[in-house]
């Protein structure tokens, strides 16, 4: 029987597991405590019960991958899992752009704050400014509002004309239109300002910018995210080819390595529907089953164009703004370097525990430096794990 290992228990990984599990031995690995990924956090508890043939390993972090096995670390063990087929469904993280004050404890990711509230953070009565870009801001604001937060403002950096054009284009995507209409109803009375971005934060007070001016905004929490960034580290480590920052796949979701597949956000930010479709295709193809067709990417393309970053938000970091949070490296120290290699040697930028997962995309976005090289372990690991 084919041994299929799937990394990630979000929509893509679960769809792949459901498809592959019909005919193969499947193990799904995720570093969270339960299935669902980010979007279904706290809503897919029953999944493992519904698919009894699929083995799951939670709180398990993949620290290394070859073309024949993966090494996983749990809080108290470490093991190697051999596979015939590997499906990478590692999802995406938020893109954070440094600005003065972004290291304050009251500043979190947009999806980040939602995840924290879902896991028990009490937001009742707090004033939460939601900022950055993309439709996620609306979903986050609606969720936080439903949990008792006050949302004084949603600040969207994209220009009004592009956002309006996008809204009109929803007419040709009835499902999305319905989602949008429901969100709008839930956000009744919440100000949504386009052409607006956060310039700086100090405890309790934000400085906001628009093309024509600036203003102040009190806040308890700032939930800010500049869109999603694919988690491609594991694919890179296994030797899969990237193209434009995403994992290159064919129509069957195969990467450049024949027995490794990739599905969902690492192949292109496409949202939950694309992730489900791609996961299903990967799970079927990896196990020799007929593959369903892929939905078209018109909606995804519209999202990318609408919420492209304006030049001003790439330039909000000042000389002494910390860019690498793990090693407290300010922008000025990085700017004087030629590239990643020199920055690492001189400043330790990108060499802390997150291994450049936060500062890497930020620096790529604001300075244009390309991807860093990836080596194992891809996450900090215990010494006994490294000996395995």
């Amino acid at each position, binding site marked *: 029987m084919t041994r299929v290992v799937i990394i990630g228990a979000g929509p893509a990984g679960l769809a792949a597991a459901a498809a592959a599990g019909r005919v193969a031995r499947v193990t799904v690995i995720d*570093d*969270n*405590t339960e299935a669902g990924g*980010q979007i279904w956090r*706290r809503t897919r508890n029953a999944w493992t019960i519904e698919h009894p043939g699929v083995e799951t390993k939670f*709180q398990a972090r993949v620290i290394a991958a070859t073309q024949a096995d993966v090494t996983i670390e749990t809080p108290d063990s470490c093991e190697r899992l051999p596979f015939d087929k590997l499906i990478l469904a590692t999802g995406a*993280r*938020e893109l*954070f752009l440094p600005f003065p004050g972004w*290291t304050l*404890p*009251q*500043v*979190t*990711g947009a*999806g*980040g*704050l*939602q*995840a*924290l*509230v879902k*896991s*028990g*953070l*009490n937001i009742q009565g707090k004033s939460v400014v939601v900022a950055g870009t993309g439709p996620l801001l609306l979903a986050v604001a609606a969720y936080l509002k439903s949990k008792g937060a006050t949302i004084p403002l949603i600040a969207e950096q994209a220009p009004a004309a592009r956002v309006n054009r996008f809204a009109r284009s929803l007419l040709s995507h009835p499902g999305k239109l319905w989602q949008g209409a429901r969100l709008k109803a839930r956000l009744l009375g919440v100000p949504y300002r386009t052409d607006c971005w956060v310039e700086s934060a100090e405890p309790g007070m934000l400085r906001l910018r628009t093309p024509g001016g600036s203003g102040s905004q009190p806040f308890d929490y700032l939930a800010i995210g500049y869109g999603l960034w694919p*988690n491609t580290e594991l694919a890179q480590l296994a030797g899969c080819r990237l193209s434009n920052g995403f994992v290159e796949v064919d129509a069957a979701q195969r990467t450049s390595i024949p027995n490794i597949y990739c599905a969902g956000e690492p192949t292109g930010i496409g949202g939950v529907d694309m992730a489900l479709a791609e996961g299903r295709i990967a799970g079927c193809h990896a196990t020799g089953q007929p593959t369903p067709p892929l939905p078209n990417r018109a909606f995804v393309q519209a999202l990318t164009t609408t919420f492209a970053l304006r030049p001003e938000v790439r330039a909000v970091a000042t000389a002494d703004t910390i860019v690498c*949070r*793990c*090693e*407290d490296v300010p922008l000025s120290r990085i700017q004087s370097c030629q590239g990643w290699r020199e920055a690492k040697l001189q400043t330790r930028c990108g060499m*802390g*525990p*997150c291994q450049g*997962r*936060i500062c890497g995309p930020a620096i790529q976005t604001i300075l244009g430096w390309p991807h860093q090289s990836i080596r194992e372990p891809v996450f*900090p690991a215990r010494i006994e794990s490294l000996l395995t």
Partner: protein
Amino acid sequence: MPQTADVRINGKEFTVAEGTSVAAAVLNAGYSMRTSIHGEPRAALCGMGICYECRVTIDGCQHRKSCQVLCATGMEIETT
């Protein structure tokens, strides 16, 4: 009756709902998570195990990502 967990954060006792992450418990208790290498207080940024800003000590084990650990009765949590 709702299920709960009793934990200690920096020596103080807190009762939290079952399923509460250590990160949420620490923030609800009014603490940040760690002190950066230059002495700034830091708290969870990404909420999903990527940024390592939410590291705390749990039962004597340092550098645990508090957003990916659920509270359990008897847990000793320390921020730095």
